[in-house]
């Protein structure tokens, strides 16, 4: 461990939360051979130790999106230090590191931290330059930073950062630091290694469930499969007789926590996970199942089908007069698409470790929104936030599952009850049965076109179980529709309608929320329109987007725009790299889909073949083009795209949560399937559009266009149009 001495606080920066302080020299030695060194903090994100190791604090939870690489790159770039001399640590949750900005959500990290983290590096670089200039008694302009040294332009002298750090930290912090020009970037826009790779490969990386603290118990909770059920009576005698079981008690939520989704249950605490699991099995609980036993996905199907059969309850957007066109045009098409509830299933089931003491608390969290959890726990434990330390462990996948506070609330309840350190966890069965799912939805689309093949009207009716239905005073469609998404503004008559299907089944955000359903409906229907027009699906899309670049306001609140040119660019690049017009064997086909999510543009071309006699689909290749503005880590962009393709294939092929009598039928990986090696495409080619726009995220944007690209390819291969996901055995037709 690096000792943490000589902490020097000097000032605060205008960006808020950063404060300065530092230390030392860059020796050409591998990281693991270095002994402990003195550490000087330059600011919240950055300190340098006597051995020249630059320690960078990553503020955002690492759920596999590669943020522990991409954000530290920003500091390292501006500081002008070799990547191999970087050590990344995980920042605790707190205002110092951005507070609510410390979230793995909305593909936001690079958009939020792009400037402040570069500024953190640049400010430290400037201080080191000023310190060197003082040592050499030369003007600051005669010095420059490179590779962990400040160099003197007029002779060959140089000083390591270590030798300068202490002096630098005593200087007044400069207010107008210049950031590097993109043409001077040495790290940004390249691929760098994952700073955590060694720990992952040797098993020493600490995930939430790997946290071990002294005197720690384990706990988990038995709950009813029916949401809203309450415990009538329970018998804990058999559970308490199991060796290692320490305590059994009921956990209820009576408005003391104003949060949805928590289920009443009986908690089992024990000295090992195994004791807790056995204890849970031995419990005898009599439930009052409540009103939700009437819930079923079968009735939701009927309800939503009916709802999209009539005018929607809410008008989301209305340009021109769609209905007039639909009533008078002879060129028209309609189709209805369905997306089921799906679960997140991160590889690591949710967990939270809490050490609650009388006047303070320490937490090891796996939350995607740790600062929100910190504030909740502060209220619940009646402790000021300064008395709570919330660490973030490495996290075994997110996908939106860890945006919900349910498991943290349960952990807090247990910790308060037992008053000793506890690791609270869910099993895989809990994970699938008690998840808050991606909303269930039906989409009926209708469109007309003129004799030149130009789209003249577009109607999109959606009915579903919006996740916003749980929020007071918010229109439920807000989370399920993006009114300015294409083809909005590309046709004079455009209308979106929404009807809420009432359901108490829990639902929440999943990777690219809203978009992942919309993309399937919109990009499948666009494909259908192309075929109805005897057009090539790529050409049809390009014609729809027209010549030149048009930018339309997308999210007025955030000031974002959606560009026709950037969308065309990814479509064309993906098509070109995939060999779009090449001749394929019989029963093979290519499908294309392009989509805009969180300011990034992604197009995929899927190449598949379908053996119709056996209903066997083979996904041969995905060729992808992404535009996320300025790329930080090229390898990271590719990894996120590859991963999103696999995720999208899993959802398209198998994934569906079904409900009967209020209970989720699926409960583990044997009946809720995830794509495996044999079904994964053997080729994934990711191409990046380099255009100099500001950087945007990549955790989510590649996901929405996967399902439509796949299903469009299936249609091209065999003429079967998939309108309901998952595909399951829809290809078996003989």
């Amino acid at each position, binding site marked *: 461990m690096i000792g943490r001495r000589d902490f020097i606080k000097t000032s605060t920066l205008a960006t808020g939360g950063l404060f300065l302080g530092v230390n030392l020299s860059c020796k050409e030695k591998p990281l693991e051979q270095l002994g402990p060194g003195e550490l000087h903090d330059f600011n919240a994100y950055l300190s340098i130790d006597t051995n020249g190791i630059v320690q960078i604090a990553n503020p955002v939870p690492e759920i596999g999106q590669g943020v522990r690489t991409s954000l530290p790159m920003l500091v390292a770039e501006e500081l002008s230090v070799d990547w191999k001399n970087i050590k990344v640590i995980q920042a605790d949750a707190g205002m110092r590191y951005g507070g609510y900005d410390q979230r793995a959500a909305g593909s936001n990290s690079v958009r939020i931290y792009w400037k402040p983290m570069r500024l953190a590096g640049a400010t430290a670089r400037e201080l080191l330059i000023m310190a060197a200039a003082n040592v050499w008694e030369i003007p600051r302009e005669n010095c420059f930073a490179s590779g962990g040294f400040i160099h003197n332009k007029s002779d060959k002298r140089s000083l390591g950062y270590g030798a300068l750090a202490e002096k630098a930290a005593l200087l007044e912090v400069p207010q107008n630091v210049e950031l590097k020009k993109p043409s001077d970037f040495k790290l940004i826009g390249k691929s760098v290694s994952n700073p955590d790779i060694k720990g*992952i490969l040797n098993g020493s990386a600490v995930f939430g469930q790997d946290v071990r603290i002294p005197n720690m118990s384990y706990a988990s909770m038995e709950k009813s499969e029916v949401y809203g059920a309450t415990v009538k009576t329970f018998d804990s005698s058999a559970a308490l007789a199991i060796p290692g079981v320490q305590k059994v008690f009921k956990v209820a939520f009576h408005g003391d926590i104003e949060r949805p989704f928590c289920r009443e249950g009986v908690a089992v605490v024990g000295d090992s996970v195994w004791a807790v699991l056995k204890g849970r099995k031995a419990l005898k609980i009599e439930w009052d199942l409540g009103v939700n036993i009437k819930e079923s996905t079968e009735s939701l199907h009927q309800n939503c089908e009916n709802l999209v059969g009539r005018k929607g309850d809410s008008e989301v957007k209305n340009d021109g007069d769609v209905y007039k066109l639909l009533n008078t045009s002879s060129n028209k098409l309609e189709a209805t698409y369905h997306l089921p509830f799906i679960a997140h299933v991160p590889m690591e089931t949710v967990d939270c470790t809490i050490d609650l003491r009388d006047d303070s608390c320490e937490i090891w969290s796996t939350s995607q929104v740790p600062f929100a959890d910190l504030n909740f726990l502060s209220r619940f434990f009646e402790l000021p936030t300064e008395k709570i330390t919330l660490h973030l462990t490495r996290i075994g996948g997110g996908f939106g599952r860890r945006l919900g506070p349910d498991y943290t609330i349960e952990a807090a309840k247990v910790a308060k009850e037992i008053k000793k350190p506890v690791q609270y966890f869910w099993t895989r069965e809990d994970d699938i049965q008690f998840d808050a799912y991606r909303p269930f939805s039906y989409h009926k689309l209708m469109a007309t076109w003129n004799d030149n093949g130009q789209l003249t009207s577009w109607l999109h009716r959606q009915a579903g179980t919006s996740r916003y239905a749980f929020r007071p005073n918010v229109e439920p469609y807000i989370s399920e529709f993006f009114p300015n998404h294409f083809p909005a503004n590309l046709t004079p008559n455009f209308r979106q309608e929404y009807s809420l299907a009432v359901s108490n089944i829990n639902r929440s955000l999943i990777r690219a929320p809203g978009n992942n359903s919309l993309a399937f409906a919109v990009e499948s229907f666009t494909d259908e329109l192309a075929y109805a027009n005897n057009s090539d699906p790529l050409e049809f899309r390009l014609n729809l987007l027209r010549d030149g670049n048009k930018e339309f306001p997308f999210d007025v609140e955030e000031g974002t725009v959606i560009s026709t040119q950037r969308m065309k660019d990814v479509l064309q690049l993906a098509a070109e790299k995939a060999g779009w017009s090449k001749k394929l064997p019989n029963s093979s086909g290519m499908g294309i889909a392009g989509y805009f999510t969180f300011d990034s543009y992604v197009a995929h071309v899927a190449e598949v073949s379908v053996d119709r006699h056996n209903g066997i689909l083979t996904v041969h290749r995905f060729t992808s083009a992404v535009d996320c503005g300025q790329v930080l880590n090229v390898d990271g962009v590719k990894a996120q795209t*590859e991963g999103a393709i696999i995720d999208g294939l899993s959802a398209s092929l198998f994934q569906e949560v079904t409900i009967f009598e209020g209970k989720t039928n699926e409960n583990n990986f044997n009946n809720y399937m995830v794509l495996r090696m044999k079904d994964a495409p053997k080729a994934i080619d990711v191409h990046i559009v380099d255009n100099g726009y500001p950087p945007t995220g990549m955790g989510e944007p590649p996901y929405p266009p996967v399902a439509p690209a796949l299903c469009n390819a299936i249609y091209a291969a065999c003429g079967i149009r998939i309108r309901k996901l998952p595909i399951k055995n829809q290809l078996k037709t003989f």
Partner: protein
Amino acid sequence: MALFQILINNQKYEVDVEANKPLLWVLRDELSLTGTKYGCGIGQCGACTVHLNGTPIRSCGISISTLGDSKITTIEGLKSDNPILKAWEEINVPQCGYCQAGQIMSAVALLNNNENPNDKEIDVAMNGNICRCGTYYRMRKAIKTAVKK
């Protein structure tokens, strides 16, 4: 409860546990060898894969009482110069990393028994391991890279 002697990563351990306690929980609860992960508890995901006398097994489904003097190897017991580990690093396979110990144990066992597996053999060997981040494409590439090492 009963005393069991087990051999893990060439080291002898004595644990006092129930006879039906799965190896996974002996590793994690008793020995703090937390590199081996829980993913499903029913042998479907492979996150808990370890070697039993060189054969990859799901440690969530095997009781300690059945181990006898078998030789267990976990992720912590692999030599750092193992070609699979080298290739995994070179190709930069992991994303969240949670499933990777299990994936690596399956891949190491595959190459121990088959110097140059074809795609089909890779599919069979790796099909018991789920990666939710979707690193299959890179894992296949890494296995082929390791073959060349």
